[in-house]
């Protein structure tokens, strides 16, 4: 019990009490938006400034490289070399089926337009992700379809100075669906189970988990930004056994891409899905209704919570596990409310 941590509500020391007050009033968020916006103003600009650098550095090089003949030729040559490796099967995948080359060259480029221009993801606190060694990123989950996980993967890869790859833990449903399971494996995702998670962490990989699972993904629109139960907290004991830090991550914007106003439970049961969303557009407009709303996203990586200070038997202590789980959960929830207060509107 002595190990129980008090959650520091006053991350930003000056506005500690205001945040706490806002947090309790968080459910009535839209009303509370107008007053505090002014005092929080400096943050987004600073974050935007720090954020701009890596994004542009990722974005720019392909553009000017086209102006010189040499650049184009080099691109064609590397493209053909890539094609040659692909056609002859001369590439490597790891034990989990992660195809780094395909992910970097093709799959990420497919996700990037969604990330850059559609959701205009703003990333904060990427410096909280260690440059090397294992770490467990724990994020909130929302949006009916697990778009937030994919965006988080792009966010980490494109913004982290070391270009780290995020290995996501996905639900078993992902690995039952044809095509989806193939893409998930090639993107480096694996089944959310303790064995896979600890194996990846011990290999020094960056692992992303969304412990809310389907409870968070398929929650009604009215419950947006209210964190659901964090599973059984298995992710904490896995991180503790591996001695890797836990990085809380808050994703704002994913909740509104598919506002789920209803759940056709019978259809869901028939299809074997955990829920079947009904949004203002979805079953009514057919495939058109499956287009997500172009919300503006913010992904904030929080301060790492170290786990290496605990004795090895601590992973067996349920009380400590509950406390740590709550600490992570509170930190994510707290950051969510903070980001929501800073947000100007859902779409801009």
């Amino acid at each position, binding site marked *: 019990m002595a190990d129980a941590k008090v959650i520091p509500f006053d991350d930003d020391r000056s506005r500690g009490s205001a945040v706490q007050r806002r947090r309790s009033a968080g459910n009535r968020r839209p009303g509370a938006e107008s007053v505090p916006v002014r005092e929080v103003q400096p943050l987004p600009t600073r974050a935007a400034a720090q954020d701009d650098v890596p994004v542009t550095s990722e974005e720019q090089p*392909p553009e000017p490289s086209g102006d010189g003949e040499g650049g*184009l*030729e080099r*691109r*064609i*040559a*590397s*493209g*053909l070399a*890539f*094609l*040659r490796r*692909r*056609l*002859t*099967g*001369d*590439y*490597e*995948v*790891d*034990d*989990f*089926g992660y*195809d780094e080359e395909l992910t970097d*060259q*093709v799959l990420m*480029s497919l996700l990037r337009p969604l990330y850059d221009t559609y959701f205009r993801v703003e990333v904060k606190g990427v410096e909280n992700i260690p440059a090397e060694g294992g770490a467990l990123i724990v994020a909130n989950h929302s949006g009916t379809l697990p778009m937030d996980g994919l965006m988080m993967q792009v966010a980490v890869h494109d913004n982290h100075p070391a270009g780290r790859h995020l290995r996501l833990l996905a639900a*078993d449903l992902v*690995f*039952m*669906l*044809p*095509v*989806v*399971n*193939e893409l998930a*494996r*090639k993107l480096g995702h*694996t*089944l959310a*189970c303790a*064995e*896979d998670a600890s*194996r990846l962490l011990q290999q020094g990989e960056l692992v992303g988990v969304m412990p809310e699972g389907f409870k968070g993904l398929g929650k009604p629109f009215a419950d947006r930004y209210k964190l659901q139960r964090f599973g059984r907290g298995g992710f904490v004991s896995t991180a503790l056994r591996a001695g890797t830090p836990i990085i809380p991550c808050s994703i704002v914007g994913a909740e509104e891409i598919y506002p789920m106003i209803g759940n056709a439970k019978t259809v869901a049961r028939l299809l074997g899905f955990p829920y079947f969303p009904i949004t203002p557009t979805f079953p009514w407009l057919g495939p058109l209704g499956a287009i997500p709303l172009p919300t503006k996203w913010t992904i904030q990586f929080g301060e790492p919570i170290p786990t290496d200070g605990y004795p090895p038997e601590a992973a067996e202590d349920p009380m400590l596990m509950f406390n740590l789980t709550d600490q992570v959960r509170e930190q994510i929830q707290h950051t969510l409310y903070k980001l929501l207060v800073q947000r100007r509107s859902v779409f801009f």
Partner: protein
Amino acid sequence: MGKVVLVTGVARQLGGRFVRRIQREPEVERVVAVDAVPPEHHLGGADFIQADIRQPGIARVLAETGADTIVHLDVTGTPLGSGSRTSLKETNVIGTMQLLGACQKSPSVQRLVVKSSTNVYGSAPRDPAVFTETTPPKSLPSGGFAKDTVEVEGYVRGFARRRPDVAVCVLRFANILGPTAETPLASYFALPVLPTVFGYDPRLQFVHEDDVIEVLRIGSHEPRRGTLNSGTFNIAGDGVLLLSQCSRRLGRPTVPLLLPAVTWAGSLVRTLGMTDFSPEQIRLLTHGRVVATGQMRETLGFQPKYTTAETFADFARSQGPGLLPPQALAGAVDRIADLPLAGGGHLPTQSAN
């Protein structure tokens, strides 16, 4: 006094190779090769005894030869010659029971090596990506060779409990490939066009025949210093190949079929007796299977000579060229690269940015 090694299942290539190899060991005095049918290959001077391990007569063989090391290789997925699946299952399961019963009564037996398979883990989407020796399977194999191996391992565990003085080594081999391997997967890869399951790209692991022989040799001797060769070990080459990679490296085109169609076609082919494309084979080619080999390295002290990719390359060399040889494809791409700029202009769009 030297060792007397009794090897079952010698009528197969693998058994024959192992018999020839183990005779060259200095501490081995005599090798007794047992199978129900005489082998077509030579056994290098080993004593061949024609005995069916499904019959109690195997106990007499054991008593007469006074064998101290039993290497049980007669646990296989493909019938020999024209044998049926039923007789194969009997050899696998009843044969193991009889052999273990004989071993239990024989005071001379000190060591038992059993060839098992990573099939015991099954393949299901809800399984962890990498199986360790202690991972409980989420879905037990419902039939076929996989179920046989589960049952064989069950009997071997029972035997190990009743005869704690016998060192028991269960080797769970990944898919065995090599120039002469006769496994279901080898016959699958020999098809001119590979049927695959649409929307799935299974991860496969292979182990080379040479490594199989070597690890069997390690298992049938006293453990080297600092290692332990009793227990259960996963045996597989390093690394993983996806089925799509295998087909490309082999130069054989794939035909993706929907899962129900594959199941149906599989049962049709099986009924016609063309190949043993069993349900567990389809599951393997749907969800794939990868095992951890840490125990093999650290406890058993065995380093495979071939990685999964090298094993597959060796196997591919022994196969004829496919319809789309990788060299030809590579050459075609190279010719495009040699063309003036305009010719290759549209290509990089799918890869470059």
